[in-house]
């Protein structure tokens, strides 16, 4: 008995799939028609078939790769290869060899059919096995929503298990419900949309608040309007909050750019007391080193930045040592003259770069791993390059601090800056230490240039743009104190970014400059002034 029922069931199943397959075949045959209205009808019917192959077929149809053979009316996918077309059976995917153009006929589509195909495909994809595909389909539907698909979305929502996809589907459903006849459904939909973050939702809800030309609300129900208003306020307050988070991050990333630019100066100016106006040009050299490395090894683009870091350090460092030995050495204790001489050097370096590389900006490419952004939610996304710069600047600072505190050379360096004659009598070659310290500061500026090459234009004026800022950071933070430089850079970056929404970027910068000018008047030695003997001039 059981057996009979079982075999019957199996039979039925086989029969039903077979019938299904036949139906698909018939529909495919009908697609060969020339009439677009018939084709549209067929596409509708195909959409209702519960067959996994349909998506594939419709996709090919959308891309204009669906043909039928003239000889025996078999529906095929035809992919053009040079002058011939490779055919695959649309049902079985089996290859059917290559034919010439005249042996097959295209199943043509027009614009309205294309629209229909896209919607149908998206609809079908909602039931795809792959959650990623379902998510894509749902997002597609959220953007180009078609009210006729309401039923499908409800069905999909019942079956859906993946939470991301559910979220999107819920939003679509809420959008549909907004226009429902039931007031309670509409209120629930507004309530639901209030949880969202996206600008589109705000626009949707704003639609409810629209007025006609007489100033009358299009939406008659006051309660709905109030609910919508509340929901908008809720979304906007959340967006403002995320906006603040984003601002904070922008501030930190600007701060770390400033930090990178200022660390080298914190050594040459902060530790040695040399006013190095050519500091910006050391950064410029670093940026150009990156450019040259990318040009010389085009195949190594992905690692070019990693190669450029030590290269820029060495090149800028060597320039720094040369400058110290030839010019600055003779001007110790005469800060104003040092300022002028190093400014002269900066002019020469700028012109050198102009003569060698042309005065135009050079394009430095960004490796794959640094581009793109991290979308946290609808209101907050962060670009990877900024994240890397923040990390990188902190690493450089930490490395430098370790170097100064933990190595023998760092010890000598600190000894020379604190008490030169004493250090000299202890057998330290102070001239050599000076040169190396200056080289170190310049080298770090070169490293900063590598990072800057990813953010701004690489041109002869790159250094000029950062020199005033770098000095501000060092002076604000307190000369001779690396922690001060960190705090100074970060606070200036954050202050700047938080003022920008109110004042615009230029005015924010001006206000920060004025703030620093006033600040220096109050605390001429910066936030973290050195105490004790070294304070004396």
């Amino acid at each position, binding site marked *: 008995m059981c057996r009979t029922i079982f075999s019957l069931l199996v039979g039925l199943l086989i029969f039903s799939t077979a019938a299904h397959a036949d139906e698909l075949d018939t529909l495919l045959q009908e697609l060969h028609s020339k009439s677009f209205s018939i084709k549209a009808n067929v596409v509708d019917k195909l959409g209702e078939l519960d067959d996994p192959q349909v998506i594939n077929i419709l996709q090919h149809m959308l891309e204009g790769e669906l043909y039928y053979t003239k000889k025996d009316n078999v529906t095929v996918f035809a992919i053009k290869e040079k002058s011939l077309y490779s055919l695959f059976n649309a049902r079985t995917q089996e290859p059917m060899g290559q034919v010439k153009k005249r042996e097959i006929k295209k199943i043509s589509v027009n614009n309205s059919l294309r629209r229909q195909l896209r919607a149908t495909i998206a609809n079908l994809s909602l039931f795809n096995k792959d959650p990623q595909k379902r998510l894509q389909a749902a997002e597609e539907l959220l953007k180009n929503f078609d009210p006729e698909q309401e039923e499908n979305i409800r069905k999909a929502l019942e079956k859906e298990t993946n939470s991301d996809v559910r979220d999107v589907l819920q939003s679509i459903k809420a959008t549909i419900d907004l226009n429902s006849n039931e007031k309670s459904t509409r209120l629930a939909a507004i309530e639901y949309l209030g949880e969202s973050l996206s600008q589109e939702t705000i626009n949707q809800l704003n639609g409810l608040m629209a007025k006609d030309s007489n100033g009358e609300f299009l939406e008659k129900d006051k309660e709905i309007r109030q609910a919508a208003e509340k929901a908008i306020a809720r979304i906007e307050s959340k967006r403002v909050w995320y906006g603040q988070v984003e601002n904070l991050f922008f501030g930190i990333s600007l701060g770390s750019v400033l930090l990178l630019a200022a660390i080298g100066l914190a050594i040459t100016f902060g530790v040695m007391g040399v*006013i190095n106006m050519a500091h910006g040009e050391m950064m410029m050299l670093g940026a150009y080193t990156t450019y040259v490395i990318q040009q010389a090894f085009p195949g190594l683009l992905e690692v070019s930045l990693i190669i450029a870091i030590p290269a820029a350090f060495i090149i800028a460092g060597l320039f720094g040592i040369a400058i110290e030995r030839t*010019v600055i050495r*003779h*001007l110790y204790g005469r*800060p*104003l*003259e*040092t*300022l*002028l*001489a190093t*400014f*002269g*050097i*900066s*002019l*020469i370096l*700028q*012109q*050198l770069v*102009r*003569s060698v590389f042309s005065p135009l900006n050079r394009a430095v490419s960004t490796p794959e791993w640094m581009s793109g952004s991290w979308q946290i939610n609808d209101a907050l996304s962060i670009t990877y390059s900024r994240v890397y710069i923040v990390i990188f600047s902190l690493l450089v600072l930490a490395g430098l601090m370790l170097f100064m505190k933990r190595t023998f050379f760092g010890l000598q360096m600190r000894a020379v800056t604190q008490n030169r004659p004493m250090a000299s009598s202890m057998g330290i070659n102070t001239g050599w230490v000076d040169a190396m310290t200056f080289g170190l500061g310049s080298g770090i500026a070169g490293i900063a240039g590598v990072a800057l090459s990813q953010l701004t234009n690489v041109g002869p004026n790159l250094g*000029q743009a950062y020199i*005033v800022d770098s*000095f*501000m950071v060092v*002076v604000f933070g307190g000369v001779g104190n690396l922690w001060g430089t960190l705090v100074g850079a970060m606070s200036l970056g954050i202050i700047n970014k938080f003022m920008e929404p109110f004042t*615009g970027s*230029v*005015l924010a*910068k*001006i206000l920060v*400059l*004025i703030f*620093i*000018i*006033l600040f*220096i*008047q*109050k605390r*001429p030695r910066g936030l973290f002034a050195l105490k004790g003997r070294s304070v004396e*001039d």
Partner: protein
Amino acid sequence: MLQKGIIRSILEHDKGGKILITLLLVAAVIVPVLNLLLPETSPFHLSAYNVTLWGKYLCYGLLALAVDLVWGYLGILSLGHGAFFALGGYVMGMHLMREIGSRGVYGHPLLPDFMVFLNWGELPWFWYGFDNFFFTFFMIFVVPGILAFIFGWFAFRSRVTGVYLSIITQAMTYALMLAFFRNEMGFGGNNGLTDFKDILGFSLQEDTTRSALFALSAIALIVGYLICRYITQSRAGRVATAIRDAESRVRFLGYRVEHFKLFIFVVSACLAGLAGALYVPQVGIINPSEFSPINSIEIVVWVAIGGRGTLYGAVLGAILVNYFKTWLTTAAPEIWLYFLGAIFVGVTLYFPKGLVGLLHKMKKNQKVNIAKGEAKP
């Protein structure tokens, strides 16, 4: 007679100054004559282009004088004097813009072209009054003077000195540059003020006006020189020199260091403003790039090359360097920055006292007449 006596006493023991003033007086007469009275075919005819060019150099000379007053005699290395110069220029530019009246491209009776272009409804409040020349003349000194006063008031009272002061003066001019680049400021943004037509009713294109402006620049330079010389020779000037050399000691002696500094700084800013105001009608444009920090540093170089703390050396330096600049930027534009950079380094390393110091040294060694070096400009 009395005036002559004062001038004579100011210029006592100042051979360089006497030569400079004589040369300037001669130039103020000869140059217009060569330009206006001689026919263009004459080999001695001076073209209008050259008159304007040398008028520009004289304005730079006055600017250098202002910088030398604070740097050479007070020890303040100002990297922001270009800002005072540019402000004076903008004041003059505003007057000239108002003088255009309805002859602008858009023909608006009141608004300058750029405001019409930006769809501004009415003249901003700070543009009122500049149609009056005497008000403008007054503002040429007041605007840079007030900025210098406020800036100096804060800076000197809290004893910001040396390099720190230099850096914040640089920040000041940098901030002003950014501000003037904004269209919203109401000073023409990026393009600045230009397309001037005439000054006090005289067309700026006329040779007579150009010659007059040249003569005025020469006279302004003479007056500026006398003022600076007078200040430096006065008791206040001696205190200033003392401040330069040993600030703490002067303070301990009971002088109010910040008052002396503030006074001289403000005078210097006013002179720089005057230089800017004379410069603008001659070059026909003022834009925010005049505020750029490199311009201010270039001024310092003129002074350093000429000889810091000599006044006439600053004028000499300004004229010489700019003469070379004009020549080099047309003959070999690539080389100009190398050259400028090299003189920065060379002068600070080898001639800390500049050309004047070099001449004195040569005079001591070889008894060369200093006047020959002066005869060049």
